[in-house]
């Protein structure tokens, strides 16, 4: 094996790769590189730090892939680039994937980065929300697009949603701090971290702890890719798994790498460290310790299908395809 190669040293050798893999030859690093896109679901940040580790340490390059990490954004849905082939794999979430499949997209979920859904209700200690029942009589700031999420939570916990006041807010913790709302529907790793960085203590109620079982940061690919580009998919996910396991070992180093790799993203190192630490319990569990990163059980699929039904989505278990991951962890 050649030593750890950086992506840079391998640039320019990618052209020959396509031919080699097409002939079914084993990919040889250092010579043959298949260009592959991985569509992220948001701007670069520690949210995807495991991928950065894989890229930085050349783990994809060693498997013959020249991976481009394509950033997302507020106006960058993940599904179109995956459908159109710009990206081989996209980082989606079970509910968005289900919606896309309902609209005719031929997606399969190949792996699950966030076993626990990152949605929380964040509140300030003065008017705390510890459990769903505490929401009654409160004003909750949320994107109205997430109304089904709140509905599902209420239904799961027997809370009357009509007794909660929904206030449309977007992208900011400011309304909570200004007292316009009592709590926010947001991500564990996002607005609460921002508040913590500003020296504001907040509490979060993880919805996954109250019956809202829905996988997030799921890896999706098209059925066509599954049929015709299995080797690339295995190589890509193998790199992901290795990267995220390295992340698990040292989230702080992963956060620092994120800041180093994307100096133009305006990332605050401390925020990235906080975010990296907070997402560990969402991604890693006894299950992943036993079976490896990205794994899921049939029980999890059943629970997800139930939650999706509450969100108005009908899906069947064959939306999930574990074959790639089995190959990754088998080797």
């Amino acid at each position: 094996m050649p030593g750890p190669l950086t992506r840079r040293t391998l640039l320019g050798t990618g052209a020959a790769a396509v031919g080699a893999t097409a002939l079914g030859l084993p990919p040889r690093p250092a010579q043959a590189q298949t260009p592959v896109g991985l569509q992220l679901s948001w701007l670069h940040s520690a949210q995807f730090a495991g991928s950065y580790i894989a890229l930085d340490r050349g783990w994809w390059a060693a498997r013959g892939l020249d991976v481009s990490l394509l950033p997302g954004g507020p106006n960058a849905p993940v599904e179109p680039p995956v459908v159109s082939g710009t990206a081989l794999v996209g980082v989606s979430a079970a509910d968005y994937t289900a919606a896309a499949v309902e609209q005719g997209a031929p997606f399969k979920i190949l792996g699950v980065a966030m076993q626990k859904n990152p949605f929380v209700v964040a509140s300030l200690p003065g008017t705390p929300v510890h459990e769903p029942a505490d929401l009654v009589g409160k004003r909750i700031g949320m994107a109205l697009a997430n109304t089904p999420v709140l509905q599902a939570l209420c239904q799961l916990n027997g809370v009357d949603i009509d007794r909660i006041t929904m206030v449309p807010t977007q992208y900011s913790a400011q309304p909570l701090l200004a007292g316009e709302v009592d709590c926010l529907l947001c991500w564990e790793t996002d607005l609460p971290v921002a508040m913590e960085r500003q020296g504001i203590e907040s509490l979060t109620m993880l919805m996954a702890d109250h019956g809202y079982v829905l996988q997030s940061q799921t890896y999706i690919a098209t059925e066509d890719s599954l049929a015709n580009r299995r080797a690339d998919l295995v190589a890509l996910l193998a790199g992901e798994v290795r990267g995220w396991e390295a992340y698990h070992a040292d989230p702080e180093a992963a956060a620092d790498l994120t800041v180093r790799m994307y100096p133009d993203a305006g990332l605050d190192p401390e925020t990235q460290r906080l975010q990296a630490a907070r997402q560990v319990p969402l991604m890693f569990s006894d299950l992943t310790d036993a079976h490896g990163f990205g794994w899921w059980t049939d029980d999890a699929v059943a629970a997800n299908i139930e939650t999706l039904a509450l969100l108005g989505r009908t899906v069947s278990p064959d939306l999930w395809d574990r074959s790639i991951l089995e190959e990754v962890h088998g080797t």
Partner: protein
Amino acid sequence: MTPQGSRFGPWIGGLLLLAGWELADRLLSDAFVLAGPVAVARFLMDEGALMGRALAVTLGNAAVGFVIGNLAALALAGVAVVWPRSERVVTGLALLVFCLPLVATGPILRVLFGPGPGPQITLAALAVYYTTLIPLLVGLRAVPDTWVELVRSTGRGRLAVLVHVRAMAALPALCAGLQIAAPAAFLGAMVGEFTGAERGMGVLTIRAMRALDVPMTWSLATVATAVAVLAYLALGALARRVLRAPPPVILAAPSVRSKQGAAWRDVALVAALALGGWAAVIGLGGLNPFFAKGPGDVVTALVFAPDAPETRATLGAALAETAVFLLPGYAAGLAAGAGLAVLLVLLPGVAGTVLPLAIALRSVPIVTTAPLVVLLLGRGALGTIVLVAVMVFFPTLVACLHGLRQTPGQVLDVFDSFAAGPVTRLIRLRIPAMWPAFFAAARMAVPASVLAVTVVEWLATGSGMGRLMALSASLSDYDMLWSCVVVVSVLAALGYALVGAVERRVLAVYAPEQQT
């Protein structure tokens, strides 16, 4: 545009603005809403390198888009002038494309271009080409007949008229268009970054908003404003060097008058070309039918599908919600623009102070101000209405000032000889002379206000069409998304045509020479 009044006017205005800004910061220190000039300066000192790199990226994309968009405008204007019968079709198609809501076009462009600056540049170009095309066409057309006949009498045709007479005569109008285009290009490039970019001012804006990094948010707004104002002033200075003669006729855009039958035929032609082009892009682009919906898909979704009534109801509700913000904001912006223009003509000393402030207000990219204004004025109707009004206000002010100052000197002398006071002159002479420019601005403001309201709804308030489009994209409901695109574009184009119809009636009285 040369503001009358004292040379110190802009400085006084600037200082007042800074002082008020800092004061507001002190008063609202705990609200996480505002960062004053001191905080902004501190941030820029600490993070100057980061900001510089982001600015370079966004500015570069904006500049490329600016050039491409304006070249496209020049080419389209050339076609329309050399072949006058095509004018209404060209402008109709151009309007329709300009009215495409960028909330929806962004993701589609990203798929078309893949990674890289493609969508940023395209959105910047799309943001500018129409605001250049329309004044340019006016300038090209507003040439005395005898100049045209002069060229024809030498045995030369339309092309020679275009090259030797119209092109030169249109320069003032072109300069006016370019000035308005500069901030628009910057905004387009920033919004393009929302479709997935590694770096740039747009990327930092999202980051800052989410991270509750108020100094960064305001620093971004400050830098973006400064850049937009500088571009505006630089183009103004360039215009003054290039232009030897003042514009021969007022900046106004009357539509070509013709028979009713021809107008309907052109509308039908525009619709046919738009539908054909749409189908062709989807067919030839090899776009996946999952997200690339054709005209047939939209018709099915809106009319024939089992859930069509539901789709229409959703769309209708969102439209109604948007209209509640859009119409008052549009009217308020027009009134404020025309009103301030009148005030500035009566009090020329103030113009030097107010005008730079007005330019600054308009040039702030709406994606940075949308959340700020909503934070300051609330999530209700007021914040959105104010933002729409700001978007409409500035072009109206500039156009109306231009119109007011265009009053023929000789007629003014006649009034002077009757010892008419400034108010009489204003009411009897200048305001009537202003109408053509006012209506031109009102027409141009229709797409601008639609852009503003959908962006605010998308980024800040989460309501109406802006929300529906963003939501449809994230839930892969592309039938709904494309239906939204069609409805928004067509309604914006219709609004534009409606203002144009009113304009024609007014112009027939106040500026008959503008109608060819």
